[in-house]
């Protein structure tokens, strides 16, 4: 038998917990489970009846070389983007926590790319790569800039990494700024008194102290890079000749162009497992190196 106080507690729990639980279940858990179910079926996207085909979609995915090629390209893109965006974000974070004049204005200005939608930004950069840089290259006689980066498979991948890193670093910068701001001033002071130079302060004092930020930033960068879709669609659309088709774009095309919903869902489940394993490992190893105060 619950006491009045117990009822009140339960009412509070229901009031605050149930709406969130309902949203989480309907928007995340049920679609996720439904997606796993679809991956074992042959489905046309409309019918309410499903033809169960066991693991045939998974077998097909595992035997499709283009899936693995796409996954490999996503891996290369992820490595490039995670490294570059974090380096840029770290540098910007460091710069904008120093005694720079107008740093708040800089923070706002640098954050702007993250507010612009991925699709819009992709189209803007497509124009810059196709017409801006090529005009500069042609007028200055720089051969490598005279042709569009987007028309060469390797350079298109570089372009994709550059644009993604440019956008993502703005977001990561905010987390690094928070991290650097929380480094106790007395630690830095003490290091300087002990004779540490700027590099020494950065590497031996600040960096260990912002490892939680590094953990979060690496996690976010890995997940966002593996799941990249909008910039991929608008900047290169997987081209030239399919050389930059990342896995999320491939999944979308398999579903809505090839109309193979079960196959697309199987690819999505495999991608989920890969990203989950990598993210958990990354979080585990980076958290182990965090400094506890």
């Amino acid at each position, binding site marked *: 038998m619950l006491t009045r106080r117990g009822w009140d507690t339960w009412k509070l729990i229901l009031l605050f917990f149930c709406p969130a639980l309902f949203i989480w279940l309907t928007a995340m858990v049920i679609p996720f489970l439904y997606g796993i179910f679809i991956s074992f079926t042959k489905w*046309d*996207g*409309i019918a309410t009846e499903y033809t169960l085909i066991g693991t045939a979609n998974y077998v*097909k995915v595992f035997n*499709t070389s283009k899936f693995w090629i796409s996954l490999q390209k996503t891996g290369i893109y992820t490595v490039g983007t995670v490294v570059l965006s974090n380096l840029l974000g770290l540098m910007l974070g460091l710069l904008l926590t120093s005694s720079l004049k107008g740093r708040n204005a800089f923070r706002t200005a640098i954050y702007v790319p993250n507010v612009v939608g991925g*699709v819009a930004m992709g189209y803007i950069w*497509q*124009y810059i790569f*196709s*017409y801006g840089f*090529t005009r500069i290259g042609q007028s200055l006689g720089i051969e490598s800039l*005279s*042709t*569009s980066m*987007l*028309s060469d498979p390797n350079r298109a991948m570089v372009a994709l990494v550059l644009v993604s890193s440019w956008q993502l670093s703005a977001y990561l910068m905010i987390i690094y700024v928070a991290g650097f701001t929380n480094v106790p001033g007395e630690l830095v002071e003490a290091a300087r008194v002990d004779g540490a130079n700027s590099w020494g302060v950065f590497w031996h004092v600040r960096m260990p102290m912002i490892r939680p930020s590094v953990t979060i930033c690496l996690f976010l960068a890995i997940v966002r890079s593996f799941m990249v879709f909008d910039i991929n669609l608008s900047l290169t*659309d*997987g*081209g*030239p*000749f*399919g050389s930059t088709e990342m896995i999320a774009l491939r999944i979308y*095309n398999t579903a*809505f*162009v*090839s*109309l*193979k919903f079960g196959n697309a869902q199987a690819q999505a489940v495999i991608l989920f497992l890969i990203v989950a394993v990598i993210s958990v490992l990354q979080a585990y190893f980076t958290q182990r190196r965090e400094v506890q105060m």
Partner: protein
Amino acid sequence: MFKKILAILTALAMLLSLTAAFAESEAHNPVTISYYSTQAGVDEETVATLNEFMKEYPWITVNYYPCGDDQLAAWLALYSANTAPTVSLLDCGQILNYSDYMMDLTKAEDPSFFNHVLSGTDFFQKEGDSAIYGIPGSYQGFSLLYNKTIVKKVFGDDFNVDTVNTVDKLVEFFDKIEAAGYPSTVVFSADWALGAHYLGCQLFSEWLGDKATQRQVMADLKAGNYKLIENEHFNHLMDVFDILMARNVNKADPLADTQEGDLEMLAHGKVATMFQGDWNWLMIRNFENIDELGIMHLPLTNDENDARNLKILGSCPKGYCVDTYQNTPEQQAAGVLLAQWLALSPAGEDFMVRLIGSTLPFDNVTAVNENPLAVSTQEYLNAGRILDCSTYLCEAPTDFWLMVGPMMQKYLAGQTDRAGLAEEIQEYFADLD
């Protein structure tokens, strides 16, 4: 006195018409239907057109679902939400893919509206099935868009493009244009343009043979026992593509172009021709100081007696279909009314012709088309000079352009040769489920 009588008569006439409209409305139960259109960017105009329909059929209320960038995904989402649109304007391939959920319009209460459709119903029919699942929404022509202003300057006002009826004469045509100082052509490099329009529609067209032959080639490719490189038509097609590639104004960086950039060059006389279709008018009309433009055929052989050399490709890319899966029989009946009204009424025709700039394959079109490219299409259509490419549009795998387009891009960029391209296309077909 006369004025008084006139006023009374006018009032009586208005009263009678109102009573008639009310009586007609009373005779029908109110019904609410929905309309999904993949004609993007004209939502306000679509709503205005639907309002016209609702004035004519006051017992029918139409809710409008505009499409986003993901046309098919948005349409499928409506089905998932159990709110399938009663009438949809969809690509013919999609209508056929989902024909299980569509009404056979020949079984509509009064299918006599098909009497007004001159051509294009075959784009909404499946092999061996007499059912028609869509009313053609428009007719589109594509082949070689050309700048008439340049052609007139180079060849004189009286030049007849029909004299360009062989590949050799096409080369001569390009030579003279280039000698006059104009780049002769631009190859638009988008995967969908190369995969679907240049290769898909032209390969599986009447150039390949009759419909049975086209289907047989597709079936043999799927079975993995067809050598595309040995096909004469494929080689003709690629021979002409080689000519276009060699003269491409963007050949230094052939994949760096954009649709808008290429069309702007064509419209402003910076290039004389471009392989594309009349639908590009929607983009071209936004430019200022547009030259005179038109569409001409693309000859593929040196046989001047081959009538196919003087034809352009034509298709009914979109059609109006009626859902039977999630709509009641009353809604379906109202949907048929809406679909035929959108296709054949003066207001519907005006929308498609004046606003979208499409050609219409109907017998009663009065709307004046301001799209010079569609005017060319209409001329070819009237003369019966249209290459049938319905086999590709209706029966090829939906992802043909997505998979083969990049292969064509590779060829355009010099990263593969013809044999390699043919091999890759064969592999694609053989890998289909």
